[in-house]
């Protein structure tokens, strides 16, 4: 029995080892190695990479990264909730179709989709021209290269990741509980707030993590559609990697970010 149990949990343990422990350790390992000029890592140990953390622009960039990530996550959840609700309440045939619709956006190359947004939002693009004609925006206004552009394209890119776990949770939610809540005098809105949201708590948490965490490391979207004002910490990591070819510094920034995010979680866990 015990052996069989071990055999059953073995794939999960292997998963833990290969996909969590190894890369995390490796990044911390690399962060303390010297860089070589050809982009590799040298022998011995070095604290040189830690210097990357001393950049005076970093506090502002980190604050901006956290803010954009937070707003993207919040808006993704807000948009994803009614979609997940609709999917969970649909009949099985519609469920299949709606799930396909959530999956379909993957089908076009990510880069191409971002470039498509660039075309839509371009100063001479379709949308800007329309808005200018309707005099809804100034003729000098830029739709592109704004922090809000980064926000828009990020929400677009991460929405499926928010919808899938919310849908999974809503699917398992017992909707008769909402009948019960209304029967007991709750309005539709209160029933949703006091019964539905607590009921899909785990799904909300998963969705928030799945959006927030990769947003923290996001670099392609701010690079392509954001301006200087919307640079994120991910761009800094990518620069160290590609431009400076300094892997240890990139690893150090990444490790610091991981620690900054993981720490509050670990502390909360300890307390509860």
């Amino acid at each position, binding site marked *: 029995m015990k052996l069989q149990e071990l055999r059953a949990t073995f794939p999960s343990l292997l998963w833990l080892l290969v996909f969590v422990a190894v890369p995390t350790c490796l990044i911390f390992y690399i962060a303390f190695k010297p860089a070589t000029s050809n982009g590799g890592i040298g022998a011995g140990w070095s604290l040189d990479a830690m210097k990357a953390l001393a950049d005076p622009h970093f506090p502002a960039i980190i604050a901006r990264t956290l803010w954009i990530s937070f707003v993207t996550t919040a808006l993704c959840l807000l948009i994803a909730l009614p979609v997940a609700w609709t999917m969970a309440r649909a009949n099985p045939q519609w469920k299949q179709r709606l799930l396909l619709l959530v999956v379909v956006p993957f089908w076009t190359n990510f880069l191409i989709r971002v470039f498509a947004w660039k075309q839509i939002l371009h100063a001479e693009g379709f949308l800007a021209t329309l808005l200018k004609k309707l005099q809804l925006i100034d003729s000098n206004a830029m739709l592109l290269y704004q922090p809000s552009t980064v926000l828009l394209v990020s929400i677009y890119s991460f929405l499926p990741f928010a919808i899938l776990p919310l849908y999974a949770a809503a699917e398992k939610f017992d909707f008769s509980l909402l009948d*019960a809540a209304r029967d007991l*005098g709750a309005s539709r809105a209160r029933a949703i707030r006091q019964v539905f949201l607590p009921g899909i708590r785990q799904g909300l948490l998963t969705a928030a993590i799945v959006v927030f965490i990769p947003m923290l490391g996001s670099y392609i979207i701010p690079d392509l559609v954001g301006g200087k004002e919307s640079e994120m910490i991910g761009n800094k990591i990518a620069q160290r990697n590609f431009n400076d070819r300094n892997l240890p510094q990139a690893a150090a920034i990444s490790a610091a970010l991981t620690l900054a995010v993981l720490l509050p979680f670990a502390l909360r866990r300890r307390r509860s």
Partner: protein
Amino acid sequence: MSFLRFENIRKSFGDFRAVDDVTLSIEKGQVFSLLGPSGCGKTTLLRMAAGFEQPDSGRIFLDGIDITTLPPEQRKVNTVFQNYALFPHLNVRENIAFGLKMARHGNDFIRSEVDRMLTLVDLEEQADKRISQISGGQKQRVAIARALVNRPQVLLLDEPLAALDLKLRQRLLVELDAIHDEVGITFLYVTHDQSEAMSISDQIAVMNHGQVQQIGTPNEIYETPRNSFVAAFIGDTNFLTGTVENSLEANTSLARIDDDITIIVENDRPLRAGDPIHLSLRPEKIQLTRSEPPTAPQRNRLTGIIEDAIYYGSHTRYWVRCSSLKLCAEVQHRKFSLEEKAPHWGDTVWIQWQAEDGFLLHSYNAEDESLLTLPEEELIEETP
């Protein structure tokens, strides 16, 4: 004066007619049961009273006020759901307090009311437990307390005991009855279990195919079923089909059931020779003896052979073949009967019943025979 009234309610789901022109009046303080098989429309009616469904046509009145289109949260009715529908993220106390919180009562009031309810359903010690930590019977009690704490005008109960074991079901039914006596509010009780409905109800509406078949007290429903569905669904019965031979007196006739069986029938309406009749005869009304009983006025006597017997502890059911007829007789086990030795399979026995115990049905449908508990020798036609 009717307290809760359904008027000409109709409701379809797609092509399926769930409720087909139902009119019902429920008196204040009654336990009123909707009884019928799955899909008969009883739960749909209850959900319309709660406000979860809207009728396609017809009106619902509560205490004289039209509540047909009122949303659930504005109706002074509360529901005990079949699957309990307790909130898993709240504990027992918080579940019971939910309705009072929604009504924005003060904390002190809420605490004292919830405590009162916890005492009523005997769950003081479970107050701080999670819903997943308590048993099925306890969940049922929480569901009742959560509904009653709001002092509804009508308590709606949707098969509240269906998910429980038989013994627990019997016990909670008694508790439910005691709670009704205590709080005195109107109960609308939905069930498919006739013994549940019989033992708790003041009035029963028997439903089938979205229509009310009969409304009456348990006694009326059982003793004077209008049609073959009611007779067969409420308890067990024997159907006797035949033709009137001639009238004996104002209220009795002679009827031919089979080529060689003629019985006396009591009729509540005038019958003429040649009229077809359908009789319902309850198994417990038939007396079974091993020796030939003396003749008596207004009494039917037949002799036959026992083809089947099922022992139920407090009673035994015998199926007796009398030429083409097969009649079920129920015999209670007690030491005061005249004969001590129980009859067995293959024995020749006499059966007798008073003419007034056979009840003449107003309508008869051969399909309803399938509701009877009848050992069928024809079930298996082929031997392997």
